[in-house]
C-alpha cells in the first residue's frame, strides 16, 4: 500500500487529503471482509478495509458479540466477538489497513482497471478491485416514524450525540429505553437546562446502575422521566421548539424543547450501495457464483450482501465466496501472470 499525502492550500490553512492505494478495497469489515484479507494475502494482494462502524467485526461486534456461533468449522462453539478477534489475528501477517467509522459514498472509475472510492469523511482509496462485503448494509440510527422528522434534522433533531457540550443550557428530550438513552440522559442532566426521558414502558432494560441513577436523578428533579409514553409529534417554525408526548392513557402534552434525541439503536440499510450501478435483487447484489463477480467488471460482492440461486447467509459460505473471489481478482489484475495454487501447510503463511 502506498499512502500519498497531498497538501492543499486554502487561504492560510493547509489541508491534507490522504490518498491510499491498494490492490483490493474491501467495503465492510465483518467476518467475511476480514477473512478475505487472508486469502488475498496468500496471493500477495494487499487489502484496505472500510467500514461505517467505528470497529471491525460488523454485526458480530455491533449486535451479538456475546452470542455463540456453532457452525464455524473446527469450532464447536465460538463467541461472535472471539471469532472476530481470531480473524484479526489471522490476517495480521498481511498488514491490512483500515478506514473505520466512515461510509463509502461514491465509487468512481479513474482509469483502466482503477477505481477510486470516497468515504463520508472524504478519505479516498484507489484500487483495481473492489470487494463489497457489506453484510446487511450500513448500520444507521433507527428513526421514529414522525411525520415532519426530516424537516428538523440538523435543526433540533440529533440521532447521535457527538459533543454533549452542544446541549449546554438547552432543553432536551431524549427518547428510548436502552443503555444509550439512559446513559445520555444521565450525562445531559448535568449539562442541559432540562432533560426529559420518554420511554414506552414503565421499566427500563438497561444496566442496573444506569437505571438506578436515572431514577435518583428523576427524584431530584434533574430528569423529567416520562414513562408509558411516546413522542408523537414535533413542532417549530424552522427550528424545533416543541415535542408532543402522548401517554398510554391517551393524554397528550406538549414540552418545550431545543433538541429531540431519539435513541432507538441501529438498523442496517443498504445505503449508497444501491447507487453504484450494481444489479440489485431484494436488497442484495446479484453475483455470478463462478467468482462472485457483479455486473460491473472489477467489483465483486461476497457474504450476506450478495444474492444467487441457493444463497445461504452463513459466515462459512462467505469465507468460501471470498476465497474464490480473490483468485478471480488476481487474474483480473494480472491477466498475464500464472497463479499456482498452494496449501498453507506446504507454503506456510508468508507475511508482508
Amino acid at each position: 500500500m502506498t499512502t500519498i499525502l497531498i497538501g492543499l492550500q486554502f487561504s492560510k490553512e493547509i489541508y491534507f487529503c490522504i490518498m491510499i492505494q491498494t490492490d483490493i478495497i474491501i467495503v465492510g469489515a465483518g467476518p467475511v471482509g476480514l477473512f478475505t484479507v487472508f486469502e488475498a494475502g496468500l496471493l500477495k494482494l494487499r487489502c484496505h478495509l472500510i467500514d461505517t462502524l467505528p470497529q471491525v467485526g460488523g454485526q458480530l461486534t455491533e449486535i451479538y458479540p456475546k452470542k455463540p456461533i456453532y457452525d464455524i468449522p473446527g469450532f464447536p462453539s465460538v463467541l461472535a466477538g472471539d471469532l472476530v478477534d481470531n480473524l484479526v489475528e489471522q490476517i495480521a501477517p498481511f498488514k491490512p489497513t483500515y478506514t473505520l467509522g466512515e461510509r463509502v459514498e461514491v465509487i468512481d472509475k479513474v482509469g483502466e482497471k482503477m477505481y477510486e472510492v470516497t468515504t463520508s469523511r472524504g478519505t479516498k482509496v484507489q484500487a483495481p478491485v473492489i470487494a463489497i462485503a457489506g453484510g446487511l448494509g450500513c448500520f444507521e440510527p433507527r428513526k421514529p416514524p414522525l411525520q415532519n422528522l426530516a424537516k428538523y434534522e440538523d435543526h433540533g433533531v440529533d440521532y447521535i450525540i457527538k459533543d454533549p457540550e452542544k446541549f449546554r443550557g438547552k432543553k432536551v428530550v431524549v427518547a428510548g429505553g436502552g443503555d444509550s438513552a439512559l446513559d445520555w440522559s444521565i450525562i445531559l442532566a448535568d449539562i442541559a437546562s432540562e432533560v426529559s426521558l420518554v420511554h414506552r414502558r414503565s421499566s427500563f432494560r438497561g444496566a442496573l446502575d444506569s437505571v438506578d441513577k436515572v431514577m435518583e436523578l428523576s427524584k431530584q428533579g434533574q430528569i423529567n422521566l416520562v414513562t408509558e409514553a411516546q413522542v408523537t409529534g414535533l413542532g417549530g417554525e424552522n427550528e424545533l421548539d416543541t415535542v408532543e408526548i402522548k401517554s398510554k392513557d391517551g393524554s397528550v402534552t406538549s414540552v418545550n424543547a431545543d433538541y429531540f434525541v431519539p435513541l432507538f439503536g441501529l438498523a442496517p440499510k443498504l445505503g449508497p450501495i444501491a447507487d453504484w450501478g450494481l444489479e440489485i435483487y431484494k436488497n442484495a447484489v446479484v453475483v455470478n457464483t463462478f467468482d462472485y463477480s457483479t455486473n460491473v467488471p472489477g467489483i465483486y460482492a461476497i457474504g450476506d450482501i450478495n444474492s444467487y440461486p441457493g444463497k445461504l447467509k452463513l459466515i462459512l459460505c462467505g469465507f468460501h465466496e471470498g476465497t474464490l473471489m480473490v483468485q478471480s481478482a488476481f487474474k483480473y489484475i494480472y491477466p498475464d501472470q500464472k497463479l499456482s495454487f498452494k496449501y498453507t501447510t506446504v507454503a506456510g503463511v508468508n507475511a508482508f
Partner: protein
Amino acid sequence: MKEIINITVIDREDVKHELEAPTDMAMNVMEACKAYELPVQGTCGGMALCASCHCYVLTDHELPEPSESEEDMLDQAFFVEDNSRLGCQLRITEELDGLVVKLAEESE
C-alpha cells in the same frame, strides 16, 4: 397431537392470509410468513435483533412471556402496542392453532 396448525396473518393492506404451519419443524411465525412469501423481512434471521417481524396478536392465545431480548428489541421498535410481539419469537406449537396476528407497520 396436531402436526399442522392454522394461523391467520393480516398483512399491512388488511388482507387476510390463512397459513398452515407444521409443529414439528421448530418453526416460528416469522418463518411461516416468509415461507408464504408474506412481506416480512426477518433481517436478523430470528435473533430478536431487528423487529422486522413485529406483529400484533389479535386472539387471546396464551403465549409464552416475551424474553428479555424480545422486550429489548420492542423498546427500539415503533408502533408498539400492548399486544406487540416479534413473530420470530413465537414458536409454532399446537397451542398456537387458530392464532391471528396482524403485521405491524414497517418503520423506515
